[in-house]
């Protein structure tokens, strides 16, 4: 059995009267593309924010690569090895594409203010490595021709890809993507799919929140379905698709003669 990358158990989060997450549990194995789906308001993004330290859970135990971690500080989570993208793109708009990716190297580099001012050998070597790695990542993601353009001038699809490149720059064990295909057209989705596949082959595990069921079904190895903050189904895409609980969550109560597969898509 593959090594477990992320393990989260009994995660609870309450916002006032709303139980946003109720005993959510997830186990992601090395090399998987793991899908997290559910109707609007199911708690997907809240769970994401809990995993990455943006929202403090009420309860929960978390393990990353077999070692317990406490997701209380986003920057510590990044250093621990989870990189994320955001549902509404959050690039550094007035920095170039290259600089955006270079910021991603922050978690894995060490030069301090004194190194910068004195331009020590260590800082120069590190700076060259940061730049080289950032160029490499832009190359891999297919954005190297925009390296010196400000991020805000890139097209929507390119901005999404740049966010992935920036996240990859942190050398994550787990790459968490919050609706990466949102607002993309068919061609861009095709390219995204190829990109995620190539990331997986590099040994990076991916957690994916996605509305596009077709994309999730085609890409993911395993899926968890959330509804009203609860896990209602876990399994392979095919299993989940047939699960009556899932069909109910998406389509309401199904009476007789359902045709779930066609409708889900």
């Amino acid at each position, binding site marked *: 059995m593959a090594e477990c990358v992320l393990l989260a158990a009994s995660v609870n989060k309450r916002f006032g009267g709303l139980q946003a997450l109720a005993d959510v549990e997830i186990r992601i194995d090395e090399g998987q593309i793991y899908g997290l789906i559910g109707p609007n308001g199911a708690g997907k993004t809240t769970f994401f924010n809990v995993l*990455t*330290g*943006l929202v403090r859970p009420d309860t929960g135990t978390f393990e990353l690569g077999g070692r317990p971690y406490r997701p209380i*500080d*986003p*920057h510590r*989570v*990044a*250093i621990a090895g989870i*990189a*994320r993208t*955001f549902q509404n793109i*959050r*690039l*550094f*708009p*007035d*920095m*170039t594409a*290259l*600089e955006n990716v*270079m*910021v*991603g*190297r*922050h*978690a*894995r*580099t060490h*030069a*301090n*203010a004194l*190194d*910068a*001012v004195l*331009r020590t050998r260590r*800082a120069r070597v*590190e*700076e*060259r*490595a*940061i*730049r*080289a790695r950032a*160029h490499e990542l832009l190359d891999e993601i297919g954005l*190297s*021709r*925009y*390296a*010196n*353009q*400000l991020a805000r*001038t890139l097209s929507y699809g390119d901005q999404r890809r740049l966010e992935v490149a*920036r996240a990859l720059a*942190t050398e994550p064990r787990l790459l968490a993507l919050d609706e990466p295909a949102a607002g993309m057209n068919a061609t861009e989705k095709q390219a995204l799919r190829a990109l995620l596949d190539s990331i997986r082959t590099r040994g990076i595990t991916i957690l994916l929140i996605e509305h596009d069921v077709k994309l999730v079904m085609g890409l993911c190895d395993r899926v968890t379905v959330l509804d009203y903050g609860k896990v209602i189904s876990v399994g392979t895409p095919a299993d989940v698709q047939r699960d009556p609980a899932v069909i109910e969550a998406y389509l309401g109560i199904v009476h007789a003669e359902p045709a779930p597969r066609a409708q889900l898509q």
Partner: protein
Amino acid sequence: MSERAASKDPGSRASSAGTPPRVRAALAAVGIVLIALPWLIGAFGDAWVRALCFAALYVMLALGLNIVVGFAGLLDLGYIAFYAVGAYTYALLASPHLTEHFPALAHAFPHGLHVSIWITLPIGASLAAAFGILLGAPVLKLRGDYLAIVTLGFGEIIRIFLNNLNAPLNFTNGPSGITLIDQVRIDGLDFAHPSTIAGLQPSSLVLYYYLLVAMALLAMLVCIRLQNSRLGRAWMAIREDEVAARAMGINVRNVKLLAFSLGATFGGIAGGLFAAFQGFVSPESFSLMESIVVLSMIVLGGLGHVPGVVLGAVMLAMLPEVLRHTAVPLQTAVFGRVLIDSEVLRMLLYGLATVGVMLYRPRGLWPAPEHGTEGNNTPRGPGPASQVVPRHG
């Protein structure tokens, strides 16, 4: 020391950045102009050299504030407080004030406290940095307007303290300020009684000019290096999007405090030099207006862009002197009398300039290039999306 540093500075920058020869030549030309300037402009009167000295001080202040506001995006309206901390530190350690009012100290230092600039400046800078952290720690979660109000309050608190710390124990001599501050002495070169150097006899004022310009150039170098570093990128990242910056592994708290304290350090050093240069400090020099003037300099010149900030600082700092020589004669010639006092006119022009820049050049007179700051390392193709991007390293 000052001339050495002044002439060495552009050279070392050119070599370290791998600058093309054209830029290197321009830097050398600027260096020569800066060295010759006091002798040329001094012919029109010492007042001009004095104005240049103040311009250099304001360049340091503007560069320091630019770290906080321009790089890290934290609006600070109380920046002048750090200038005050530096100035009063120097003033207290290098004037008879403390020994006059504290007999115990007078016993310990029978010849008075005359601490060398090599000690006073670092102490002033570290104190200012400590105050920077003192201000930064409680405002970590504030942004924009809220941050501006708190920092404004902080600036006023420091000024009011300086104004009132003369009783029951006289620390600051209150509104009358501290006088008889020692002149700078560096390696036997006494700025009060300059000796002949290489056949030339520079006045005290010219020596200060070289010292201040050298420090301003050093400040520029430090700023440029900080900007193009891991830390500089982290500052810009939190300016652009704090949440995303955290997700990239940036410890926002530490990086912000570092911005506050490094910015304050620049203010503290500028303050110490100001005290030595003036020979006198009083709380009046550290009013809210001064904070606003320094902020105008960086906004006018180009927020976050070091050359722009320097341009803005020099322009606004030289304006009063230019007005003194033009406004009064011009008005007497046209109207027969002075209608608007040159000080009032200065404020009017600041306001007009700010409005004009906001309308026509919202990113400042000399903003950062649209395509990022990577220009010095990446030869550009014809367009922004040129196909060939050379690899580095």
